[in-house]
C-alpha cells in the first residue's frame, strides 16, 4: 500500500502559464453536435498555440512566481519537471530549465514522465527529498503543450505549464499525506504509440491513418479508449480519497477544496456525486482551459481560487488520475500562499 506522509515542508506559491490564444470548442465528428460535446466534457474553450513548448510556458510561470515570492534563485536546490511533451527525447528538459532559469549548478534536476497524476507524483517525490531538510527550496514544474508533430488541435486538451514553489519550514504541522497507485494493465488506454523505442519511427508513422473512431491520426498522436478511462476515473478517484482518509484516520468531508485532475466534466461530476461534495468544494478550470494534463490541479487553484485562499488556512485534497494508468491523492493545508496572476504568452 503506497501511503506516505511527509512533513516540515510547505507550498509557498503557485503559478500557471498559458498561451494567450483562446480556441472555442467545436465537435470534430458528425456523430454529435458542438453542444453535446461541451455538455459532456465541460470544455467550452481552451488555450492553444503551436508557438510555445511546455517548458516555455512553465519557464514563464516560474519566473513570475519567483519574482512574486521574492526568492533568491541561488537558494533553489532542486527542480522537477513533470511532462509528457518534453523539449527533446534527451536531454531531460529539467536540465535545460535549470540553465534557462539561471539556477545554480548545485541544483538537482530531473524529469518525471507522467500526465494526469503527474503533479501529485512530482509533489510526493520532491517532498520525500525535502522533508529531511537537506533541500530547502525547490521548484515543481508541470504541464503539457505543443506536440511532437503537427496535428489538428484536440478539442478536450488545453496547453499549460505550471510552477509550484516548495520550501522547508521544519514545522511538523506542515504535513502532506499521500495515497499513490498504478495499474499498468491499462497502459494502452491512453497511448502515443510512436516516438519511444518499442515502435521505432518510420516515415510511414507521419502519414495519418483511419482509426476505429472514424478519425485520422498519425503515429505521434495520442489515442484514448475514452470509455475505459472514464470507468477507471469514476471508480479509482473516490476509492483513493476514502482509502487515504481511512489509513491516516481523518475526516475528509471537512476539507475545504477537492481539486481533481480536470479530466472531463461528466467524469468529475460523477466523482463529486459519489463523494457527496458540494459544488463549492470542487472548483473547475476545464470550462475555460480544458484538460491540461499534469497542470490541471495547480492551474485550477491559480485560476479559480486566487483571492480566496491566500490569507487563510485552507485544507485541500488533490487527486490526479489517468494515463499510465496512474493515480495519486494528496491531503495538505496551505497558509499565506502566494498565487501569481495567470501568465499569458
Amino acid at each position, binding site marked *: 500500500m503506497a501511503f506516505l506522509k511527509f512533513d516540515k515542508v510547505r507550498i509557498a506559491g503557485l503559478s500557471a502559464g498559458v498561451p494567450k490564444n483562446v480556441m472555442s470548442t467545436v465537435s470534430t465528428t458528425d*456523430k454529435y453536435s458542438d453542444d453535446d460535446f461541451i455538455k*459532456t466534457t465541460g470544455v467550452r474553450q481552451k488555450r492553444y498555440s503551436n508557438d510555445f513548448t511546455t517548458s516555455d510556458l512553465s519557464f514563464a510561470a516560474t519566473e513570475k512566481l519567483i519574482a512574486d515570492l521574492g526568492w533568491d534563485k541561488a537558494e533553489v536546490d532542486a527542480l522537477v519537471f513533470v511532462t509528457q511533451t518534453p523539449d527533446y527525447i534527451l536531454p531531460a528538459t529539467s536540465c535545460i530549465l535549470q540553465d534557462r532559469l539561471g539556477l545554480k549548478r548545485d541544483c538537482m534536476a530531473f524529469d518525471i514522465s507522467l500526465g494526469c497524476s503527474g503533479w501529485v507524483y512530482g509533489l510526493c517525490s520532491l517532498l520525500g527529498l525535502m522533508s529531511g531538510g537537506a533541500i530547502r527550496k525547490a521548484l515543481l514544474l508541470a504541464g503539457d503543450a505543443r506536440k511532437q508533430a503537427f496535428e489538428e488541435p484536440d478539442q478536450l486538451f488545453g496547453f499549460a505549464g505550471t510552477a509550484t514553489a516548495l520550501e522547508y519550514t521544519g514545522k511538523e504541522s506542515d504535513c502532506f499525506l499521500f495515497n499513490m497507485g498504478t495499474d499498468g494493465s491499462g497502459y494502452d488506454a491512453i497511448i502515443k504509440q510512436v516516438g519511444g523505442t518499442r515502435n521505432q519511427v518510420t516515415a510511414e508513422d507521419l502519414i495519418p491513418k483511419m482509426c476505429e473512431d472514424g478519425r485520422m491520426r498519425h503515429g505521434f498522436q495520442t489515442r484514448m479508449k*475514452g*470509455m475505459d478511462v*472514464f*470507468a477507471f476515473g469514476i471508480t479509482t478517484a473516490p476509492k483513493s480519497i476514502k482509502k487515504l482518509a481511512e489509513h491516516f484516520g481523518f475526516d475528509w468531508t471537512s476539507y475545504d477544496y477537492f481539486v481533481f485532475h480536470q479530466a472531463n466534466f*461528466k467524469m468529475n461530476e*460523477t466523482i463529486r456525486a459519489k463523494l457527496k461534495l458540494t459544488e463549492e468544494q470542487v472548483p473547475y478550470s476545464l470550462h475555460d482551459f480544458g484538460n491540461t494534463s499534469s497542470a490541471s490541479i495547480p492551474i485550477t487553484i491559480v485560476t479559480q481560487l486566487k483571492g480566496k485562499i491566500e490569507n487563510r488556512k485552507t485544507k485541500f485534497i488533490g487527486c490526479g488520475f489517468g494515463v499510465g494508468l496512474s493515480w495519486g491523492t494528496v491531503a495538505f493545508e496551505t497558509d499565506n500562499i502566494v498565487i501569481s496572476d495567470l501568465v499569458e504568452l
Partner: protein
Amino acid sequence: MKTLEEFVALFAEQFDDTDPSEIKADTVFHDLEEYTSLTALSIIAMIDEEFDVTVKGDDMKSSVTVEDLYNKVIAKL
C-alpha cells in the same frame, strides 16, 4: 438485485431525446440515433452507481442488445 425491466428503464433514462418506449430489452442500442460514445459514458456511470460494477469499452462494444449488457453486468456482480 435489479431486474432486467428496471435495468432497461435506467438505461433509457440516459437518453435525452429518445422516447423511453423505444428502448426495450431486445433493442440493438448501437443502432439508436442518439447512442454515441458520449451516451455510453452516462450508461457506464449509471451502472457504476446502481450496480457498483465497472463496465469497460469492450463490454459496451460487444453487447448487441440492452439485455446483453444487463447480463454482462449481472455476471460481474
